[in-house]
């Protein structure tokens, strides 16, 4: 039983309700959500039946539809029925070879589909899927959501991750964490079996391929390496079938619309061939027959490509395939018999697929969401993930200076010093890149920004420290500072393939107005919730560690809390509330730091006692 302290009048806050959180697998072909109820992870039923919501959005002149209802419009309106848009998150027009869709002619930036409802970015389409899943969650659980964990392919780069987070913002969801899909699957399996040792997760989804090598040790899931291909998946198997059909039928030209319909037919025949040895397909208005053997020949090169990534990931992890104790299969495409056989042969052991490969990622995400939202403060579960691709800056001559290498454990912060190359230079352009190649032109451009206000000095005298910080979502933040003068230079970041903050704000406004709802009321409600949460967390902190504050500090903090508590009841201005919440946050910063430091000494004391028991202390 918790021991109570006497609080100031009116400061008792209702104790934490069990918070509601979803794990969402936002897939290329299908999406789904899961949650933890009564200590068990369960997958949510979709309103249209089954658990999978097809990742399809119909943007017609007559309205918007998602899931199976959207797919039903594929036949009469293929150009307005968007699918596989996950593959185009954070991508430009030039990155997509042949989508079959009409793309808007805008120059640069993220690509947009040209639909009957206007130009739509992949971020907006993803937001619609997230909204549909969230609505399903609210309906099933009978309460508003406190947060979600959204899974992303481990091999997603920064632009793709940021685009996913933007989609959640557009859908009005609070993202607790972006979680890598293979890591989520490992959580679902690992917690289930109490597995220890090295595990490989082979995840072949609809549009992306991931391989992660993890070490499991007493509740710690340490990703040693991850690799993959964010443009290799079941979709590509379908494309191989379509291309084969085109040459088999001797067709010269195929319209985009025919192509989109053919892809759907190819997917069906591929699925049948996982069960049967021969199947017919209706494609381009003609009948063809395909055997499993023929299919295997068509997809062999793609499977080989995935095994190359496996080999590289093993090498990065510094383990041999013999040291891998378990192989887990994830993703609907691992149902293809050839894929299973190839993985078994490569690792020299039969892979595990005891948990449905379609739902395992959402289940793992739900388990992590339950912990992150605060329902299980004492859970001995820790995920140490890595960044999949190196991060760097463009330097003279178009070369890349690497700042953070791939497979570095996150969060991570690294700094590097740069200097000016001209006398009196006061500005510096910085180009942030991600990838393994040496030339900047071969890497992915993430953002460009300009550093201004460098004090004029002779060339080479300025010392500009650029710091890259990658957070636990795998998202990069960049800051720059001139060391000699301490000038924190102003930075404006222009994402190369993302949405700018004001774009998101205006999309959010438009979507709320479209739904006939009041954005202001919503924002006020959000600020009230976050204010309550801050008060609650400070209350808990005082309850646990009041001893870290002297009487005067405690009194001042409590007075500031009472002030915010009062403001939350009377203030109607969301911007003012936000300011007050931030002010209290700053006020409590030193307290938060002292608590963290106390945590460190407690943590190490605990270890030392363990080591004493084991008779190991002082010896090395």
């Amino acid at each position, binding site marked *: 039983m918790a021991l109570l302290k006497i609080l100031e009048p009116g400061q008792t806050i209702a104790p934490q309700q069990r918070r509601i959180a979803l794990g969402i697998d936002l897939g290329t072909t299908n999406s789904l959500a899961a949650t933890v109820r009564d200590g068990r992870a369960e997958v949510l039923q979709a309103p249209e039946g089954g658990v999978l919501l097809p990742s399809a959005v119909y943007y017609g002149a007559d309205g918007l539809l998602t899931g199976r209802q959207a797919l039903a419009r594929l036949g009469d309106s293929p150009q307005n029925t968007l699918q596989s848009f996950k593959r185009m998150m954070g991508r430009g027009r030039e990155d997509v070879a042949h989508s079959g869709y009409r793309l808007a002619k805008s120059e640069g930036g993220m690509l947009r589909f040209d639909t009957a409802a206007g130009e739509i970015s992949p971020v907006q389409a993803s937001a619609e899927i997230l909204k549909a899943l969230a609505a399903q969650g609210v309906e099933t659980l009978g309460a508003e959501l406190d947060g979600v964990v959204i899974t992303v392919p481990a091999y997603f780069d920064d632009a793709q991750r940021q685009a996913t987070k933007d989609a959640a913002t557009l859908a009005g969801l609070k993202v607790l964490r972006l979680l890598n899909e293979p890591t989520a699957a490992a959580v679902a399996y690992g917690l289930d079996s109490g597995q220890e040792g090295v595990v490989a997760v082979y995840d072949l989804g609809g549009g992306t391929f991931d391989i992660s090598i993890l070490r499991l040790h007493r509740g710690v899931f340490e990703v040693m390496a991850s690799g993959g291909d964010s443009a290799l998946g079941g979709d590509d198997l379908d494309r191989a079938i379509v291309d084969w059909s085109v040459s088999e039928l001797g067709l010269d030209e195929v319209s985009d619309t025919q192509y989109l319909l053919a892809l759907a037919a190819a997917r069906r025949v591929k699925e049948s061939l996982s069960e049967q040895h021969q199947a017919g397909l209706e494609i381009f208005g003609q009948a063809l027959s395909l055997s499993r053997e023929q299919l295997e020949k068509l997809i062999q090169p793609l499977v080989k490509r995935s095994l190359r990534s496996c080999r*590289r990931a093993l090498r990065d992890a510094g383990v041999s395939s013999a040291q891998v104790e378990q192989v887990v299969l994830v993703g609907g495409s691992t149902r293809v018999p050839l894929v299973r056989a190839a993985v078994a042969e490569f690792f020299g052991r039969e892979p595990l697929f005891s948990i449905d490969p379609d739902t395992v990622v959402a289940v793992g995400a739900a388990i992590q969401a339950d912990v*992150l939202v*605060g329902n299980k403060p004492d859970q001995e579960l820790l995920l140490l993930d890595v960044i999949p691709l190196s991060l760097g800056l463009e330097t003279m001559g178009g070369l890349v200076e690497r700042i953070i290498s791939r497979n*570095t454990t996150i969060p991570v*912060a690294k700094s590097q010093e740069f200097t000016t190359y001209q006398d009196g230079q006061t500005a510096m352009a910085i180009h942030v890149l991600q990838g393994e190649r040496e030339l900047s032109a071969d890497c992915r451009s993430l953002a460009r920004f300009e550093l201004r206000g460098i004090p004029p000095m002779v060339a080479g005298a300025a010392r500009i420290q650029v710091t890259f910080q990658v957070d636990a979502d795998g998202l990069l933040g960049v800051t720059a500072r001139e060391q000699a003068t301490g000038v924190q230079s102003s930075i404006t970041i222009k994402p190369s393939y993302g949405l700018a903050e004001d774009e998101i704000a205006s999309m959010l406004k438009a979507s709320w107005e479209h739904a006939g709802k009041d954005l202001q009321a919503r924002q006020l409600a959000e600020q009230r919730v976050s204010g309550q949460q801050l008060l609650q967390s*400070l209350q808990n902190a005082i309850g646990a560690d009041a001893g870290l504050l002297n009487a005067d500090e405690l009194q001042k903090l409590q007075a500031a809390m009472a002030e915010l508590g009062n403001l939350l009841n009377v203030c109607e201005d969301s911007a003012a509330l936000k300011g007050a919440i931030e002010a209290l946050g700053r006020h409590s910063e030193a307290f938060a*730091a002292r608590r*963290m430091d106390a945590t*460190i000494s407690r943590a190490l004391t605990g270890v030392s006692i363990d080591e004493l028991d084991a008779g*190991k202390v002082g010896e090395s």
Partner: protein
Amino acid sequence: MDFSQSYFELFELPQRFELDTDVLARRYRELQMHLHPDKHAAAGPQEQRLAVQYSAFVNGAFHTLKQPLPRALYLLNLAGWDKERVAAQPVAGDFLLQQMELREALERIHGLVNPEAGLEHLQDELAAGWSEHSGELSAAMADEDWNEAAAAVVKMQYLDKLRSEVTALENSLLDS
């Protein structure tokens, strides 16, 4: 957290080259079990931000101390040897000669009938060199002979660079 403290202080380990990596790993996990942002996801934004900074510092410290080469560079740095000074440390001419020979062998691999065997031979030579120079490094570090230690570090850096080129070549052979 005092970000100016040494990584050895952070993990409460003696400041020296030889260390028990099991103890290091255990203390690292214990710290992250408390400091990682996931452990503060339900806390206020200040605490979350601190958790990212603290956790990043602990990650940086762990990965520096875990591997011998970064650990040696770090110890040299604590002894007043920055990267440039280490890099300027002269190494013996016969070592450089040997490096050139190894590089030539690497360039010849593409033309070999059996490139795999050539790669394997090269990897063996690199591994032998690595273990020789890490022995030198341990001895120099134990004596706090920074000149010798820096020379060993420079040699290991040469080998490390060559090893990554061998790996890249191996990848490209596998992919072709």
